[in-house]
């Protein structure tokens, strides 16, 4: 088939809401968009281990420690599902790791904020993972098969993440005055960065239309942000915490909550490297990669030795 016929076949597959699979012909721009998006998503999961990993050794009980370990291990797992999906598009995992640690590929801006108290573990589960779920559920129907399938696995596991966070916060708000203050202080810090997780406003998101036409995205950034706000307000009420936006109120005409947009200048600054923890996160990832090099080499040398023995035997 010539290129026009292949393109027509691709378009027809998308139009019929069928999935594109790894060895199918696809436009170069579709492939590139997916590689960029899936890689960034994978990097976010990997870097996302750090803010919470910070608290594993200081967890307040064995129960909380076991939960947090399992959660951080899941984040690693999600990163690996996604690297595996990205590789089906013809990129190499080593190459993606290089792009991350050299700062040439990005990850979610949210992980460039510090975790200052144990309440942050709960708030990250509730707000950050809650926002991630809003973003990720529609990706289970993404037109690219391997990405969609990875997202199905991830979404199942994210539900645990969000619930453990909310339960942790419930325990704290039912605790001492000091604990309630910690929760409120954490919510105040994470609310705005959580809203930023959906990306720039639609008017400032030039790739959205193309991604929607390709069935990679199913909803615009602003639609998902609104959905998140609507979902979160009653959850905040049940916790008895205040979301730090004086303009947040129900709009009966729209059938949605009105809310203040986050500071987009801050978002741009954090994305481009000036967030509170950008340098620390990348340095830590680079160090882990470099310090693990001897393990990778040793395992490979062992495998090669075993293979030689088998040939000799």
């Amino acid at each position, binding site marked *: 088939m010539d290129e026009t016929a292949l393109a027509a076949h691709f378009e027809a597959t998308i139009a019929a809401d069928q999935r594109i699979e790894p060895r199918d012909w696809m436009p170069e721009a579709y492939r590139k968009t997916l590689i960029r998006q899936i890689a960034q998503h994978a990097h976010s999961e990997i870097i996302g281990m750090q803010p919470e990993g910070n608290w594993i050794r200081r967890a307040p009980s064995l129960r909380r420690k076991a939960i947090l370990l399992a959660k951080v291990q899941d984040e690693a797992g999600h990163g690996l*599902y996604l690297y595996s999906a990205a590789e089906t598009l013809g990129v190499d995992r080593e190459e993606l790791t290089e792009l991350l640690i050299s700062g040439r590929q990005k990850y979610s801006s949210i992980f460039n904020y510090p975790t200052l108290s144990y309440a942050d573990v709960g708030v990250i589960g509730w707000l950050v993972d809650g926002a991630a779920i809003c973003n990720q559920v529609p990706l289970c129907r993404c037109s690219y098969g391997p990405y969609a399938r990875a997202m199905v696995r991830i979404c199942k596991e994210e539900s645990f993440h969000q619930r453990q966070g909310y339960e942790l916060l419930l325990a704290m708000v039912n605790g001492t005055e000091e604990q309630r203050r910690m929760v409120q202080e954490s919510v105040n810090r994470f609310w705005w960065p959580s809203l930023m997780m959906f990306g720039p406003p639609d008017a400032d998101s030039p790739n959205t239309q193309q991604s929607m036409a390709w069935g990679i995205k199913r909803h615009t950034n602003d639609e998902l942000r609104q959905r998140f706000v609507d979902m979160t307000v009653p959850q905040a009420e049940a916790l008895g915490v205040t979301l730090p936006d004086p303009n947040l109120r129900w709009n009966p005409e729209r059938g949605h909550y009105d809310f203040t947009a986050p500071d987009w200048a801050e978002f741009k600054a954090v994305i481009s490297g000036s967030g509170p923890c950008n340098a620390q996160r990348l340095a830590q990832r680079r160090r882990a990669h470099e310090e693990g090099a001897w393990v990778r080499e040793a395992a490979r040398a062992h*495998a090669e030795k075993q293979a030689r023995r088998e040939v000799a035997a």
Partner: protein
Amino acid sequence: MTDAAVSGGRPDRPRGGWPLWEVFVRGKRGLNHVHVGSVHAPDAEMALRNARDLYTRRNEGVSIWVVKASDITASSPSEKDPFFAPAGDKVYRHPTFYAIPEDVPHL
């Protein structure tokens, strides 16, 4: 059509890295193994362990197969490919091809 058939045109051993293995998991007894994704590992044994850690953290499997991605041979991806054409015009292979009076039992 032999290399990296499941996962696209990837090299078996990327520069400096470990080779790629495709992972198949049997969810429970009585079911087929199903492809779930891939892992990198230096050898088959480590591939199995990595696959266990990655794909069965919540009892999702009772058995795992790992296969070097480079050892898989796959058909061409397009559904319109003539490879599958021979099955296309043989409607008589399906039970619904045969008209049987409704009052004949057990057919």
